[in-house]
C-alpha cells in the first residue's frame, strides 16, 4: 500500500541553527499537509500544499511540494526552543466528503530538539 517516509527520525540542533525534514511518498499525492505535535500534545495543522512545485512560507517556516507531487520538505530558519516537537507530513491521494480531507497517510515524523 501507499507509504509516506520521513527523514530524519530525530534532529538535535543548537538554538539559532536551521532545520529541515524531508517527506517522500511511494505514490503521487493530491496534496500534502504538515503538522506539529508537541510532547504530550496532539497534532496541530500547519499548512497544506496542493500544487506541483508549490512553496509556502510562514514566518521562519518554508514548505515545499515537489514537482512530481511525491515529495515535500519543511525548513525552519534559526530555530528557537519553541520549535521543539515532532513534525509530521501527511499525504492524501483522494478527496474526502463534505468539506473534509480524505484518508491521510502520515509519516513517522521528525522529532526536533533544540538546545538553548
Amino acid at each position, binding site marked *: *500500500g501507499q507509504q509516506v517516509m*520521513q527523514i530524519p527520525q530525530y534532529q538535535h540542533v543548537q538554538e539559532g541553527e536551521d532545520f529541515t525534514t524531508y517527506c517522500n511518498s511511494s505514490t503521487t499525492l493530491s*496534496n500534502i*499537509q504538515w*503538522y506539529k505535535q508537541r510532547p504530550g*500534545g*496532539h*497534532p*496541530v*495543522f500547519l499548512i*497544506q500544499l496542493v500544487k506541483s512545485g508549490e512553496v509556502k512560507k510562514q514566518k521562519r517556516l518554508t514548505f515545499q511540494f515537489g514537482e512530481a507531487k511525491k515529495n515535500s520538505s519543511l525548513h525552519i530558519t534559526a530555530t528557537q526552543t519553541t520549535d521543539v516537537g515532532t513534525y*509530521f507530513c*501527511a499525504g492524501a491521494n483522494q478527496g*474526502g*466528503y*463534505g*468539506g*473534509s*480531507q*480524505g*484518508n*491521510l*497517510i*502520515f*509519516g*513517522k*515524523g521528525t522529532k526536533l530538539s533544540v538546545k538553548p
Partner: protein
Amino acid sequence: DAGVTQSPTHLIKTRGQQVTLRCSPKSGHDTVSWYQQALGQGPQFIFQYYEEEERQRGNFPDRFSGHQFPNYSSELNVNALLLGDSALYLCASSFRNEQFFGPGTRLTVL
C-alpha cells in the same frame, strides 16, 4: 468556540474487553475522522464519517467500528481488545481541508 473535544482522557481496559470513545467536532464541522497513534509513530487513519455513514476506512479490522450522530458527534468502538490496541486515539474534524485534532484518548490495554 470549543475545538474538538474527546472523552475520556485516559482509559485502562483488560484484554478481551470492549471500549467506546467519544468525540465532538469543532462547531460547523460535519466530518469526523478517527486515528490511532502508537507511541513514537505517526497517526494511522482508522475511518471517516460523514452524514452519519462510514465513508472511508483504513487498514483496521472489523473489531473497530464507529457511529456518527445527527449532531455530527461520533463514537469509536473497539471490541475484543488486544494488548496492541494500546495507543492514543485521535479524533479530527475537518473544514475545507484543514483538519483539527482533538486532545485524544489514551487507551491502555493490560
